């Protein structure tokens, strides 16, 4: 296998704390992962686990306090703002909240053209590209002249995807991109993600708390728990036959939309919980 597109080694993220001489708070405690070109790595975890922070660190939006991030063979860990800007044509983002990820006062066209214009595209060329992008994400051409508030959540997320695609990136960090969407919209947006990947060969770092979503789109999955990746591997293995107790718990906690199957799962979960509780107790006993 060739070198991966993105490689994170021992990645740590810590935020400074307001106040005199307070130590920074570490959110991510050294994680390793790789993403190949055209591949989707799903990152799944619960709130506060640090999964979103990992994505933001890759994007340069969170302070990396340790480890290294390598993109396409280059170490981008300590890139300056200028270098980061140059990297923007390679790495892009789609955020969770379709409402706050688009500037309410800019038209869709202006939003989409912005990354192109800052990279020196001329106006006419950028406009053509914007129309292509809208087409690519399944929005009508007249959408360019409209403001975000005229669009539904799903449509906005399509705009956000188009914006990410605009400079032709090779990696898109997707931070819970469908969590805020309605069920029916969620499915179509997911499909769009997959279609685009197939079309353009872009790689995804796909962050989500929803195992079903991750399972749907990822080639490989990493499970984050308290700032560490506790389990990583091919999607089928991690989501069907997890090894780590936390992954097991996570899997069984998600209800299946099938009354009969869910009854079974609930029973499994109760059993697992009892088992883990017993183990904990033993561990405590051993400790004591």
């Amino acid at each position, binding site marked *: 296998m060739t070198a991966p597109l993105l490689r994170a080694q021992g990645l740590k993220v810590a935020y400074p704390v307001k106040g005199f001489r307070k130590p920074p708070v570490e959110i991510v405690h050294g994680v390793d992962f790789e993403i190949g070109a055209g591949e989707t790595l799903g990152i799944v975890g619960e709130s506060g686990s640090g999964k979103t922070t990992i994505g933001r660190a890759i994007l340069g939006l969170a302070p990396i306090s340790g480890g290294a991030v390598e993109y396409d063979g280059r170490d981008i860990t300590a890139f300056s703002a200028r270098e980061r800007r140059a990297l923007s*044509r390679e790495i892009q983002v789609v955020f969770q909240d379709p409402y706050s990820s688009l500037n309410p006062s800019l038209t869709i066209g202006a939003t989409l053209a912005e990354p192109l214009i800052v990279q020196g595209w001329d106006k006419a060329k950028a406009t053509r590209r914007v129309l292509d992008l809208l087409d690519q994400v399944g929005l009508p051409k007249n959408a360019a002249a409209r403001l975000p508030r005229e*669009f539904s959540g799903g449509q906005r997320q399509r705009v956000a995807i188009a914006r990410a695609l605009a400079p032709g990136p090779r990696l898109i960090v997707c931070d819970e991109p469908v969590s805020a969407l309605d069920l029916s919209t969620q499915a179509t947006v997911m499909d769009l993600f997959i279609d685009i990947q*197939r079309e353009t060969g872009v790689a995804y770092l796909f962050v989500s708390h929803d195992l079903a979503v991750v399972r749907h789109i990822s080639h490989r999955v990493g499970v984050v728990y308290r700032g560490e990746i506790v389990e990583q591997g091919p999607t089928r293995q991690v989501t069907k036959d997890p090894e780590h107790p936390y992954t097991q718990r996570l899997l069984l906690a998600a209800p299946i939309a099938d009354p009969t199957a869910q009854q079974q799962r609930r029973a499994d979960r109760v059993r697992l919980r009892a088992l883990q509780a017993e183990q904990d107790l033993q561990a405590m006993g051993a400790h004591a």
Partner: protein
Amino acid sequence: MSTPTAPVAVPTLALEDEPAEVRRGAFQRLVRDPQAVITGLIILTFVVLGLLANVIPQHGPNEARFEAINLPVGSPDYPLGGDYAGRDILARLLHSINTAMVSGLIGASIALVVGTTLGLVGGYFNRFRTPVEWGATILQTFPGMLLLIVLMPLTGGDFRWTMAIFGFLLTPGIYRIVRNQTVGVSRELYVDAARVSGVTDMRILGRHILSVVRGPVIVATTFLFGSAIGVQSGLAYLGVGSKEIPSFGAMISDGFRNIYIAPGQYIWPAVALGVLNGAFVLFGNALRDTFEGSQPKAEKITATAVADDFEAEKADGTGALLEVRDLGIAYRSPSGELNEVVRGVSLTVRMGETLGLVGESGSGKTQTAFGVLGVLPTEAVVTRGSVVLAGRQILGAPQAELNRLRGSEIAYIPQEPMSNLDPVYTIGSQLVEGIRVSTGLSKAKAKERALELLERVGIPDPQRTFRSYPHEISGGMAQRVLIAGAVAPKPKLLIADEPTTALDVTVQADILDLLRDLQAEMGMGIVLVTHNFGVVADSCTSLAVMQGGEVVETGATVDVFAQPQHPYTSMLLGSILDEDTIRDDSAMVLVADGKDPR
């Protein structure tokens, strides 16, 4: 996803709408606001009168004629009379407008430029935050007026210099608004997205942040304009600065000194100043309404409003715990007509049964739940239908009766646990308050009961949680606390509005288990509002699917999952990402010569 307090009135897909209507700019909205139009016109009139100050009156503002001393109103050539020095009051009044406007312009524009720049820099760049904040605090603490007077020799008493200095003193106000907005906007994801897109900081500030900050700043500037005029007048009233410049303050001072000789002279400038200031304040208010949404209407804590022609049906005894029939809930549009967001919903819940109320956002499920509870927002109106709880009509029931019912027979679990606890009281005192209202127990007994309940809902250290404030416990714990509060009076009906949506999936499972256990223990009926079919499959005996304010399908959970009758239900079920779909195509690597999407 906080619970909507107002309905989603705009259809989700707005592309086909008339764009002009939707994209009506702030300006167009402003010109439709009578308050803005009237006050704007008043200001404009003042400006025009000021510009005509050399045209309308027959005299210059400083032309003093002995024969015009204290002339009464309506004298020839002196429409508003003459002042103590024989000057044309009208001329002075009109020139005072110009002084006021120039004062406002200087004061406000300096505050605006400096404040906005500082606010943007301090709000956006972390490293400048502290120094800029210090600077603003110092400016704010400065004994500015004192220095203004002491240092008069340096400014020569020219009101324009005074106003320029005053502009600096006003800077912290604008600065704080801009800074707070900037800090807020900087956290917006679209700013992150712009950064990731390679947009420079300058461009982000200019294009993304300034556009958002603009509204509040314009509003604040309007108020600053008014206060600059006020300060100029105040200083002129005190006689600080050049006496040659006609100004409202100087005129008021002259008139005040002359009040026993010619009482009317005081009124003109006072009224002009009052009206001008008022116009600016009210115009600023109108601007704020336009930019930031209109002034909130009062919030009444009473029984839900009902439509004029509403008449609740008589209770019928079908024996069900909850019978909702043909419930309609509407909101009044700005133009006055009622838009129904819940259109004739009917539901039935029996004891011990859990009804899943399922639908996508905006389908009206939460509004239905609130309608049953009688806690709809003030703006909502019940248009039709009936809600019968245990054989009793509760729709349109008086507040007192509702309160009694709520404390005993019907209870509610909200979606967002944190925001549903009062942040300033301990968990314990909030629980005790609810328990005492519903049971009339003594304080000590209520505390005992609260601790029991906390233990019952699975809180590991009830004593500690009892003493804790909401912000000191986790979301999952908070939801347990809310459940404890809800089930305290052993209600017959529990309405849970997306009780697990805000929680992690592992916590969700625990909470659902808890609810099921409590139901088994107390035999209550539950209405579980959710958009998650997994939760429905897990916990509901029957379900009702809502779309666009209507129930499109009801039935036993098993039946509906197996054989959905309505196409919408089918579509929803079809959209579920099921367990077995696992992506298995291999990662596709495009060849190097492959297409550059550009």
